[in-house]
């Protein structure tokens, strides 16, 4: 490899990682590996129901309901942070406040919300593991959640930490729209689980 091409590929590490990851996910989705992995996970989901979280979640409906309440409140916190930051990036709201200030503050709220969402989500998943395993919408939620977390910490945050004036406006708007879309999908598929397969 010449020095120039080595330097070029070296400076496009993030792009290469993203494209490789997308291609790997596509290959996984359209191969028998997806079904094999799903079948192998069945034992794990059965085990989840036998953990203390699973037993508490299944036995005491009130505990499950309280944890779910915190899950929804944290989701509202996370969703609020996403909407405020992305709407500011689109130029829809708070145009008189510097975008940097809003992005930094909402990111802290987002991280706090995400931690509570994940902690309460794991508890709830243990309680209904036998049900959610069979729901396609649960797997779409996991895909959206993993995509959202990867997107925020690997792409959105590193990009928006830079000088916003140096970023092409179309890129900022694309990031804002995809961010809202992915987190709306996380929230919608999450609520859908509650209405599915009962």
């Amino acid at each position, binding site marked *: 490899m010449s020095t120039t091409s080595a*330097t070029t590929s070296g*400076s*496009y*590490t*993030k*792009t290469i*990682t*993203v*494209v490789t990851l*997308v291609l790997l996910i596509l290959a996984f989705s359209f191969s028998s590996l997806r079904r094999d992995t799903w079948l192998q996970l069945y034992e794990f989901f059965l085990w989840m129901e036998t953990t203390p979280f699973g037993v508490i979640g299944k036995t005491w409906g009130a505990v499950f309901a309280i944890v779910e309440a915190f899950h929804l409140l944290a989701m509202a916190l996370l969703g609020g942070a996403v909407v405020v930051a992305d709407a500011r990036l689109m130029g829809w709201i708070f145009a008189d406040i510097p975008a940097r200030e809003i992005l930094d503050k909402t990111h802290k709220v987002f991280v706090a919300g995400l931690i509570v969402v994940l902690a309460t989500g794991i508890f709830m998943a243990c309680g209904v593991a036998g049900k959610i395993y069979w729901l396609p919408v649960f797997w*779409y939620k996991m895909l*959206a959640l993993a*995509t959202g977390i990867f*997107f925020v910490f690997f*792409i*959105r945050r*590193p*990009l928006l930490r*830079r000088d916003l004036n*140096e*970023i*092409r406006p179309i*890129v900022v708007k*694309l*990031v804002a*729209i*995809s961010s809202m*879309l*992915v987190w709306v*999908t996380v929230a919608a598929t999450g609520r859908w689980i509650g209405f599915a397969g009962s």
Partner: protein
Amino acid sequence: MSEEDKNAAKMDDVQTAAVAISTTIIVFFVIYWAIQIDSVRDLLNMAYG
């Protein structure tokens, strides 16, 4: 490569990666929700004609 060039290359990289992943997300989830809405319309048609 000067420090300025390195910063510019890094900026290009993160912007290209952002465009790639954002486009993938938008295309995938728009198709996903379009299919879901279509299946609801089919169900409503079957139920109410």
